């Protein structure tokens, strides 16, 4: 309590910033670049090596660009999807060129010039109002979009620029604020103005809702899954000298698979976990089993509420793929980093109650409420006024790529604000490597 919480170190502000609100920044899956969705109807692509603007993608959208997502596993080209308040999504392509070709390009014929820019490729129409978020599935097979029209659409790219709508999911009672894919399975999650989080899967050629969780009680702004194989790098990696109940906890977590983090207007970040399947006595989510196979239903329940560190809406949360650290940011301008650790025994039993709260909202799942979770989340770093007095709309982890990189695979935090700025932050080595 007495020792001050470590802070984040401001490494750079991507330059030049936008003159109006920026909404979200997506790191490229393999290159040291990011794309930023801007309210001036453009997308700005910045270098994480030089922290400068490389491209400005304009002329595609008639309203704010709210969201953008890089298609994973593309070869020879970069593919960016953009979602806008104009209710359409755009697909943009650019041939990948190495830096040498970039420097050689001087006079260049027209064709080469074109290759240097992001080309508008196609438009995905269908939503009736603003698109709030879009994201590619980890395999790149699907693109999910969501909108104020309360629907979630899943698109499949059959061949270049030929997109087919494979599902229109209309389960929510309010704006759908965000969509997120499970890192290993074709499992989609959406969060909403109706305060719920819903899970979808394909069942006999139809995408259906397989789980729904409540608990936030206010708009759920963002969701992100834990990385694949997190047990190899987070608090679980050190297995020597553990008590038996701790080993059991790790094994149970492995069975659950990657967890989900959500954040909300209610100023909390929550962790949700799938109840491992136990043979036949699996609960379904209320639909009669004549209509669909109950076996596809899943049980997700609230595992933890993170320590309260924000006093206004939390707009974004991101789960590191290399350290398991979580970071959150929102309206209060704070950026907070959390770490999961084994619960300290000496904390006289009643410690923080991270696992105690809100389990009743877990969609009928009877979570083990009596015993506190063997782990706890603690704040390991935070900074106030990360964008001066402005709100922060998005936060994400990204691989560090500038000359100052301290080790291979070092991660940094990227924040996107109402001031039009994208800021880059580093953490103490002790926190990242702990």
């Amino acid at each position, binding site marked *: 309590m007495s020792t001050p919480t470590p802070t984040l170190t401001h490494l750079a502000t991507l330059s030049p910033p936008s003159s109006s*609100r920026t909404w979200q920044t997506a790191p490229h899956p393999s290159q040291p670049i990011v794309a930023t969705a801007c*309210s001036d109807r453009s997308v700005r692509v910045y270098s994480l090596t030089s922290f400068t603007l490389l491209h400005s993608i304009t002329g595609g959208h008639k*309203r*704010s660009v*709210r969201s953008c997502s890089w298609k994973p596993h593309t070869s020879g080209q970069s593919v960016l999807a953009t979602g806008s*308040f104009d209710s359409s999504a755009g697909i943009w392509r650019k041939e990948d060129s190495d830096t040498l070709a970039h420097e050689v390009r001087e006079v260049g014929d027209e064709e080469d010039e074109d290759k240097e820019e992001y080309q508008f490729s196609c438009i995905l129409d269908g939503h009736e*109002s*603003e698109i*709030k978020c879009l994201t590619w599935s980890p395999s790149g097979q699907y693109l999910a979009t969501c909108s*104020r029209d309360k629907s979630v659409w899943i698109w499949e790219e059959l061949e270049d620029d030929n997109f087919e709508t494979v599902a229109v999911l209309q389960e929510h009672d309010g*704006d759908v*604020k965000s969509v997120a894919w499970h890192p290993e399975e074709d499992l989609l999650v959406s969060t909403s*103005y109706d305060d719920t989080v819903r899970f979808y899967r394909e069942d006999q050629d139809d995408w259906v809702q397989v789980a729904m969780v409540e608990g936030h009680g206010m*708009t759920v702004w963002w969701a992100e899954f834990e990385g694949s194989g997190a047990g190899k790098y987070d608090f679980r990696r050190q297995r020597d000298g553990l008590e038996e109940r701790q080993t059991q906890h790790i094994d149970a977590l492995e069975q659950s698979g990657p967890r989900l983090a959500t954040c909300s*207007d209610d100023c909390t970040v929550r962790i949700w976990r799938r109840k491992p399947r136990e043979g036949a006595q699996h609960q379904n989510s209320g639909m009669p089993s004549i209509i669909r196979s109950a076996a596809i239903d899943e049980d997700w329940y609230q595992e933890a509420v993170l320590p309260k560190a924000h*006093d*206004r*809406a939390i707009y974004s949360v991101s789960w590191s793929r290399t350290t398991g650290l979580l970071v959150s940011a929102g*309206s*209060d*301008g*704070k950026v907070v980093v959390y770490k999961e650790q084994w619960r300290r025994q000496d904390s006289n039993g009643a410690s923080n109650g991270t696992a105690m709260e809100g389990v009743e909202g877990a969609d009928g799942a009877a979570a083990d409420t009596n015993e506190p979770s063997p782990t706890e989340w603690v704040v390991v770093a935070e900074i*106030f*006024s990360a964008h*001066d*007095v*402005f*709100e922060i709309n998005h936060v994400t982890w990204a691989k560090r790529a500038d000359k100052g990189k301290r080790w291979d695979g070092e991660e940094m935090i990227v924040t996107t604000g*109402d*001031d039009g700025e994208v800021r880059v932050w580093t953490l103490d080595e002790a926190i990242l490597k702990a």
Partner: protein
Amino acid sequence: MDLDKDNANPTILNPSDLPSRRHESNAGKRDDGGSGLFDDLIPPYNYLSDPFDDPLSASDSDDDVVETIDEQEIYDLISTIADPEHPLSLGSLAVVNLPDIHILPPVSPQSSISTVVVEITPTITHCSLATVIGLGVRVRLEQALPPRFRIDVRIKKGTHSTDEAVNKQLGDKERVAAALENGTLMGVLRKMLSTCE
């Protein structure tokens, strides 16, 4: 007759009864150099006194920064907004009222963000324009106040049949942002705010 209006016969307050600094009607408000007149001098849609624009006030303590804008000034900014269906101001219709305006200081000494809470009272409990009025108040304050203020506009409890739904909309920054990109709605808002000089 005004049959198409939600409330054809609203109660109208006498302009001289509206709260202003000159009447000393609100106890405890100090006279800080005639800032009631100051309002007439500043252009609309400019930051009133952004501490980051002024090196002198930026060096002051947090407390002084917070005091540079008080409830009366907030009231003056929004009471002149025109009602969308009557040729009257929100102040004279008692839709906005000085006692329903609160400025909350930063929650932490490390934060410089203050919160302005405005509770509006629709003229009748089913007023369909409550959302537009609330949006007008929020937009007016977002444009006039420095960005260190967070603005929470709410319907006063018990004065509207769907107050919670309206509050949720008014508090949703993404919806507000999208609304401001809607030409028709912006036209209505511009008209409401055109009386704020």
